[in-house]
């Protein structure tokens, strides 16, 4: 009798998911059901994706959303790029200097830069946002910009677009080896109430469906992105926090060493893929 009711329940959950009215309800029920199935399996892959098998989640989007990313006259992220261009020239701080004062034309000085982050600088693992803030505080004498603030996103977008189309160039080095290994551990470790690791969805089950959506490989090759879900531009760290919220895990803090390590591993994993920044994602 219990079996029959359970079967009925699952059947109707899957049916009602197609016409879900309340945001998130059916999706999370589907996740719950799937986590029961995942419970027994463990990740056996080394989390290394061969370059010819790497797939950007761009490929999983509808043609309308692809066009939104590709056409600057349609991509809302361009507003943040314009803001970044303006900030690049804006003098501020006690020394009254702008980014341009030291770095000149971003088109020249920032070309290729975004494909190299996160990287070890003076013994510290820095993300692009972290380095922007480092420059601001030590050189400009200005307070650090808050994560997901308009200004930090604008500068990140402006710098990232200078590397648009260039291959991600994060390599394993003696300097970043330890941090990279930590990042890989985060990627493979189960977390959250749903007890899932990144690898279980984005390695073992990439290309399969979860709750009506195709599971992407999860490469950070388009950041910062205009995420339709956020209705605004956001960083890779914001997206990773969403992933962790998806498995009901304690989210890493913005700018934390764990975040930087995971970001480093993901960029290394995506090496060779062209940078699509600023991207559009659903």
């Amino acid at each position, binding site marked *: *009798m219990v079996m*029959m*009711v359970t079967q*009925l*329940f699952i059947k*109707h959950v899957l049916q*009602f998911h*197609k*016409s*879900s*009215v*309340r*945001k*998130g*309800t*059916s*999706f999370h029920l589907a996740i719950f059901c799937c986590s029961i199935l995942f419970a027994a399996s463990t990740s056996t892959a080394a989390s290394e994706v061969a370059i010819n098998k790497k797939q950007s989640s761009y490929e999983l*989007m*509808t043609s*309308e*959303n692809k066009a*939104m990313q590709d056409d600057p006259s349609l991509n809302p992220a361009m507003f943040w790029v314009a803001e970044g261009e303006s900030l690049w020239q804006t003098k501020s701080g006690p020394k009254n200097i702008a980014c341009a004062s030291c770095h000149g034309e971003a088109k020249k000085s920032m070309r290729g830069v975004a494909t190299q982050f996160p990287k070890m600088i003076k013994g510290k693992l820095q993300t692009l946002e972290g380095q922007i803030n480092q420059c601001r505080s030590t050189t400009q004498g200005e307070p650090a910009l808050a994560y997901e603030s308009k200004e930090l996103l604008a500068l990140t977008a402006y710098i990232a677009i200078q590397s648009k189309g260039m291959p991600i160039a994060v390599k394993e080095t003696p300097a970043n080896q330890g941090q990279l290994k930590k990042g890989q551990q985060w990627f493979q470790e189960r977390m959250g109430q749903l007890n899932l690791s990144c690898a279980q969805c984005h390695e073992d089950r990439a290309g399969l469906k*979860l*709750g*009506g*959506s195709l*599971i992407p490989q999860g490469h950070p090759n388009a950041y910062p992105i205009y*995420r*339709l*879900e*956020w*209705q605004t531009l956001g960083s890779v760290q914001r997206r990773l*926090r*969403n*992933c962790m*919220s*998806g498995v*009901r895990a304690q989210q890493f803090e913005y700018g934390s060493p764990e975040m930087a390590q995971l970001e480093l591993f993901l960029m290394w994993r995506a090496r060779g893929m062209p940078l699509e920044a600023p991207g559009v994602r*659903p």
Partner: protein
Amino acid sequence: MNMKFDGPQKMHRRTWMQQLQKLTLLALGAYFMPSIALAKKEDADEAIKQITDGAKIQEGRVTLTIPPLVENGNLVVLKVSVDSPMTAADYVKVIHVIAEGNPLPNIFTAYLTPRSGTANITTRVRLADSQRVWAIVQMSNGSFWQGSAETLVTLSACTEMV
């Protein structure tokens, strides 16, 4: 259904099982499909009636295009295209876009002139749920024409909401 009549006891159990099925269906239905959905279609019909003032709406000439499957309902490309010579004697005056499944039925209204050249409009809209969307078009001669499109709206994976 081949029902074997095994006696009053077993018959009673089968009926109880069927009733439990119906109850489960009812409970799940009430939980997943609140009556708000029905009210929105009425609001849409009311909004359309306000536009036409009860006048007859003809089918045809109006093509409304939205993707049949939408990954995220926050930004959906919507195109309206009306077959019209767009001359001073015969042009599209107003295009109304009405949603059947949004909190508010009206999404946008476009006012055209003989200087418009075409009656092709593209914008990006919010769709709260899978639904039918209507384009109600008023011509310069006062006639009303309509077109519609239906879409399935899915949810993004891993959001901020828990």
